[in-house]
């Protein structure tokens, strides 16, 4: 057998083996990547487009997320039983006064509570931003919300800029609104 033929065969063998090994390693890598990321927010990641939804607020007005394209949306999921949610509400209200005119919209999504509870709460704390109620938890499910409060910061392009779980200080809130405010 000629040397050239032999060299070719050796080259083919190396290529063949490399390809098989690479494919297998890629499959394993992808599996590990999937299992590691699945623990966190399953569906949504920073940079993903925020799933559109439509919910009705206490005044009967419909809010559709995509209608706020071009504005930053501060999407806060909350309930009256959740202490940190209650604590951050007044801070959100006071920052809303600053940033509303700069194109930042707050939507507070209550998780399936009664009109009475939400209305009483809003009146008591003098909340100035729209509060919508997710009655069948479909928006909560679409956003895969686990702990409350969770805040999704949606930038003017309609993408998720940041996901915040847990209580925010007024300073945090101001910083986040600065991040998503349109240019």
């Amino acid at each position: 057998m000629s040397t050239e033929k032999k060299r070719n065969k050796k080259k083919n063998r190396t290529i063949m083996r490399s390809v098989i090994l690479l494919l297998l390693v890629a499959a394993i890598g992808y599996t590990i990547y999937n299992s590691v990321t699945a623990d966190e927010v399953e569906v949504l990641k920073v940079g993903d487009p925020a799933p559109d939804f439509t919910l009705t607020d206490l005044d009967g007005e419909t809010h559709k997320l995509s209608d706020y394209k071009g504005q930053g949306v501060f999407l806060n999921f909350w309930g009256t039983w959740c202490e940190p949610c209650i604590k951050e509400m007044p801070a959100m209200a006071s920052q809303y006064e600053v940033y509303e005119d700069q194109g930042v919209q707050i939507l507070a999504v209550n998780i399936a509570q009664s009109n009475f509870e939400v209305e009483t709460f809003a009146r008591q704390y003098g909340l100035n931003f729209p509060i919508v109620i997710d009655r069948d938890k479909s928006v909560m499910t679409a956003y895969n919300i686990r702990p409350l409060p969770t805040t999704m910061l949606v930038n003017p392009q309609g993408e998720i800029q940041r996901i915040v779980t847990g209580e925010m200080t007024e300073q945090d809130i101001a910083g986040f609104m600065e991040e998503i405010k349109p240019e």
Partner: protein
Amino acid sequence: MDKLICKCGHENPPGTVLCESCGRPLNEQEQNKQLADMRYEGTARRSQTYNKSIIDKIWNFFSSVKVGVGIIIVLLIAAALGTILPQKQYVPATTEADIEAYYTDIYGSVGTVYHALGFHDLYNSFWFIGLVGMLAISLIIASLDRFVPLYKSLKNQRVLRHSSFMHKQRILAEGPGDAETLKKAEEKLTDLKYKVSTDKNGLLAEKGRFSRWGPYVNHIGLIIFLFGVMLRMMPGFYVDETLWIREGETRAIPDAPGYVLESKGFTLETYTGEGEEEKFGEAIDRVGTVAKNYQTDVVLYKIPEGALPGDTADMEMVEEHAIRVNQPFKFDGYALYQMDFQQDELKTMSFALQNKETGESRGDLTIDLVNPETNYELEDGSVVELLGYYPDFSGFENGEPQTATPLPKNPGFLVKMTTPDTPDGETSFITIQNTVEPLGDNDYKLAFQGVETRDASGLTVRKDRTLPILGLGGLIFMIGVAQGMYFNHRRFWIQQQADGSILLAGHTNKNWFGLKKDLDQVTEHASLPAYRDQQEDMEAQEKREGEQLT
């Protein structure tokens, strides 16, 4: 390395021990052996012949059966360790931080290490998946390295083998024959369903070659199975969620986009022990109650194509269904199972507005604890106004009543009662055990009358698109096992030499008894010389030598 060219002229791949074609031993070690190693037909495991580049070294590592077995043992030990402390889904904590703290609090430093190494969620830990992946690589490479040369060798084998090959086979016969011998042997072997090929002065009879592929078919099944398991980690292939739904509630089904479920009611039936069920009477007396049926009646809705989450106005009813234990509700690849229940959660509370002194009632009111109203108007112009509602009252903070959960487990109401006697209104804070009158003594009170309750159903939402793949993998695995276990690859080589004498050799990959039974019949029919089993002869000799030594 160069190809090995046998004296018969056949080119063998480097490392070959027995010529693929004629069976001559190709190295000295093999020449000195009394019996040939027929495991892979004397072919080289390819991996061992090329060991130069880094790719070859990795390849060779995975090609080793020892490495494969080692990986399996490590996996077994890891899986065993994973059962020592509970897995994370059985731990009473939900967030990652709480789970980590739980292991440290309950099990001390052992728990901390256990959690840090990922044993608390073993099947999802990266190193466990990595090991399973390595096992898959080992299965594929080790099979390729053995299957390809074996296949080539069996394809290239020729009828006339070199006499040295024949003499090294376990079954060997030598002796006189006549002109009819070969023909008669062929006749009988064909009769016994052997595939016979002849060449000049010899024949090769072969049966059940496909049995040699059993282990490789088996491995293909395993690989398909592992592939199915891998798919479970991909979004959309596997769903295993819990959905708690209360009577009258409408809830989006988790991980089933577009589907909404309404609970019409939960039923728990027990055996009465009467009538037809009398035969259960004894058992019921012994254990108290025996459940007959757990059932949730549901209505499934679908949000139309293109509608958004939260937009429930146009949702269409798909089906009404009763979900019972072991009778899941199946739709669109999903299945809803009845898994759990919670009975008698509060739904409404009724009160009577009573004058404390006279006990005279001004009428009854019922508060819906799920969706309370603000005003409750009674007879003669009395009104009870709800100022605050705390479904799971947990105490006061800065004078404000708090609720611990959104569920009406311990409802608290702040009410203002106005009657013609007390036109300015009286304020009262009512909980189940207690009434507080924060603004001084009242003339009226809300006297508790009764409750209505409702049940909650715990459903499991399951989707598994990988089941057909797992089933196929399992089936192919079993076919491979049957192929390798219940069939044998049997071969006879018979040659008639120039002087008319017969040389016969036989080989099978397992079940030598069966091979001998076949040969007995052929020997009788064709009057072949008597055969001997060289391995048994060797063992007998070793035994004799051993006895002489002692």
